[in-house]
C-alpha cells in the first residue's frame, strides 16, 4: 500500500508540475511582450513597467519559472491587475460558491442515481429497469449547459418558482439555498444517468457471485443483502467514475456559474478571460486543476484501499 501511495503521489506531483509549466508557458509562447499581453492593450507604460518588475520579466525565463513555482507553492499567486488585491484572497472568497455547487450537484445525483441503479439491477427488465435505461441514455446525452439554459427558462423566467441569477443574500441561508437549486439540478442531471447505469452494471455482476447466494441462503433479508453486501462491492467502479468525471463536472460548473451569474471560480475565470486579467486566469486555473487532481488522487487511493488488486497495477 505504501509503495502504491508513493508512486501515485509522485505521479500527481509530476502532473501538477506539467500543468504549472503549461500555464506558465502559455504567457511566453504567444509572440509579443508578456506584460503587454497580460495587461491588455489599454495598459499604460508605467503599469507595464511595474508589472514587468513585479513578475521579474527582466530575469531569464527559467528563473521566472522557478520564482513562479516558489510563489505558487507558498500560496502567493500574484496580484489582480485591476484591484491590486492578492489573487489568492480573491480565489478563497469565490471557491466556497463552487464547492457548494459541486457538492449539491453531485449529492442529489448520488442520492437518486445509486438507488435507481440498484433497484434496476435487482429487477432486470422490469418497468423500472426500462425507464432507468432510457432515462440514463437521455440524461447523459443532453449537454449540461443546455440543461442550465432550459432550466433557467422554465423555472426562473417562465414559472418564476426560483431565482434566476446570483448566489443569494449573504447570511440568508434560505435565499442561498434557493439560488443553489437550479444550477445544482443542471450539473447533476447527467450524473443521475451515469451513476444509475454504472451501479446497475456492476450490481448485476455482483449479484451473481457466490457470497451473495450464501448470504441469501442464510436467510438474510433481501434489503440487507442488496444494500449491506452487494452494493458495498458494486460501488467501487462508481467511485472511480466519480473521481474521473470530476473534470467534466468542473466544466459544467463553469457553464452553470456563468449562466446563473453565480460568483464561483468558473465565473471568476470567465470574467478574467474576458477582461484579459491574466494573473487571475493563471491562479484560478491552477487552483481548479489542482482541485481536480486532488479528487482523482483521493478516489484512486480510496479504490486501492478497498481493492488490493489495484495496488499492484501501477
Amino acid at each position, binding site marked *: 500500500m505504501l509503495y502504491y501511495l508513493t508512486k501515485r503521489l509522485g505521479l500527481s506531483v509530476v502532473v501538477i508540475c506539467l500543468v504549472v509549466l503549461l500555464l506558465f508557458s502559455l504567457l511566453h509562447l504567444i509572440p509579443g511582450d508578456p506584460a503587454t499581453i497580460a495587461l491588455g492593450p489599454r495598459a499604460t507604460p508605467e503599469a507595464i513597467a511595474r508589472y514587468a518588475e513585479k513578475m521579474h520579466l527582466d530575469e531569464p525565463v527559467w528563473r521566472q519559472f522557478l520564482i513562479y513555482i516558489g510563489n505558487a507553492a507558498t500560496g502567493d499567486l500574484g496580484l489582480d491587475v485591476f484591484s491590486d488585491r492578492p489573487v489568492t484572497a480573491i480565489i478563497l472568497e469565490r471557491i466556497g460558491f463552487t464547492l457548494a455547487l459541486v457538492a449539491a450537484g453531485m449529492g442529489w445525483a448520488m442520492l437518486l442515481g445509486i438507488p435507481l441503479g440498484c433497484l434496476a439491477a435487482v429487477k432486470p427488465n422490469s418497468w423500472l429497469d426500462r425507464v432507468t435505461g432510457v432515462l440514463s441514455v437521455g440524461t447523459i446525452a443532453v449537454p449540461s449547459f*443546455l440543461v442550465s439554459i432550459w432550466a433557467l427558462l422554465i423555472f426562473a423566467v417562465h414559472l418564476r418558482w426560483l431565482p434566476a441569477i446570483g448566489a443569494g443574500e449573504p447570511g440568508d441561508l434560505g435565499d442561498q439555498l434557493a439560488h443553489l437549486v437550479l444550477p445544482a439540478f443542471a450539473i447533476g442531471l447527467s450524473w443521475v444517468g451515469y451513476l444509475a447505469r454504472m451501479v446497475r452494471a456492476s450490481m448485476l455482476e455482483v449479484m451473481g457471485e457466490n457470497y451473495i447466494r450464501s448470504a441469501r441462503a442464510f436467510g438474510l433479508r433481501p434489503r440487507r443483502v442488496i444494500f449491506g453486501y452487494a452494493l458495498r462491492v458494486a460501488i467501487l467502479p462508481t467511485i472511480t467514475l466519480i473521481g474521473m468525471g470530476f473534470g467534466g463536472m468542473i466544466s459544467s460548473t463553469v457553464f452553470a456559474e456563468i449562466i446563473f451569474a453565480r460568483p464561483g471560480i468558473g465565473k471568476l475565470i470567465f470574467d478574467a478571460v474576458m477582461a484579459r486579467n491574466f494573473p487571475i486566469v493563471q491562479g484560478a486555473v491552477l487552483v481548479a486543476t489542482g482541485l481536480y487532481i486532488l479528487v482523482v488522487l483521493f478516489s484512486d487511493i480510496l479504490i486501492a484501499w478497498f481493492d488490493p488488486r489495484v495496488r499492484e497495477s501501477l
Partner: protein
Amino acid sequence: MSENPSEPETGIPAIDATGLPDHMSEAEIRESAARERREKLRMFLTNWQGLTGLILVTLFFASAIFASWIAPYEPNALDVPNRLSGPTWEHLAGTDQLGRDTLSRILHGGRVALKIAAIGVSVSLVVGLILGMIAGFGPRWLDSLLLLLFDTVRSFPTIVLALATVALTGPSLGMVLAIVIITSIPQYARVARTATLTLRNTDFILAERSLGASMGRTLLHHVMPNVVGPLLILAAMDVPVVVTVEAGLSFLGLGVLPPTASWGTILNEGYLVIRDAPWMVIAGGIPLILTTLGFTFLGEALRDIFDPRMGKGR
C-alpha cells in the same frame, strides 16, 4: 494503469480470425463470415436505439450538407420589421434581435457542427491510433512517457483549458478544433494501446515478426486492422462530445464568432433575450440534443453488437 498483455479477455473481436478450426474449407469460412454479418445486421435492424440513432444521424448529415437548399432564408439575411418575432408561418422558428430567421441559422449552424466533428474526430482518431500503437509496441520507457502525457492532458478540465488558451489567442474556429483534438486524442490512444498490447504476443504477430517484417509493416498491415474497429465505435460516441464542446465554447463567445451561425452562437444570442424571445434558446437547443442523442444511440448499439465487452466497466 497497466493492462496485462497476456490476459485472454481482450474485447478485441477481430483477433478470433486466426483461431478458426483447421477442418473448415475456405468456402465454409467465407460462408460462416457472411452468416455472421447477416446476423449482426439483423441485430442492428431490430434494435430500436440503433435505428433511432441511425435516423437522427442521417438527419444531421443531410440537413448540414443540404443546408443552403433547405433553409428558407439566407442565414444572415435581415428582416428588420419582423425582428424578435415568435414562430410564424413566415419564420417557423422565429427571428432574432436583427430579424434573422432562426430556422435558417440553425440549419447553417449544423454545417459548423459537422465540420468540427468531421475534422476533430478524424484527426484525433488517426493521431490517437498512431500514438497508441507506438505506446503499445514500442519500448517500455516510451510507453510510460506517453501514458503520463495522456494522463496530464486528461487531468485538464476541457473548458478550463479552453478558457486559459482563448484568454491569450482570442477566439477562433481553429482554436476550438485544436482544443477538441488535444483533449480527445488520449482516449483513442488508450484504447489503441490496450488493443496493441494484447496483440503484441499473439501467434500471428510473432510469426510476422520472425519472418522479418519491419515494425512499420507489422503495425500498418497486421496490428492496425485489428485495432481500428473499437476506435470507430469510440468515434461515434465522441461526436456528441465534440459537438457539445463547439456549441459550449461558441455559447461563451470563445468559439465561432458572430455573425457566423452556429448552435452555440444562436444559444448565446437567445440567452441574452431569454425573457423576450424564449423560442431562440428552445429552437437552438433542439438540434444539439437530437444530434448528441443520435450519435450516442448509434454508438451504443454498434458497441453492443460488435463489441459487447467494451461496454463493461465504462
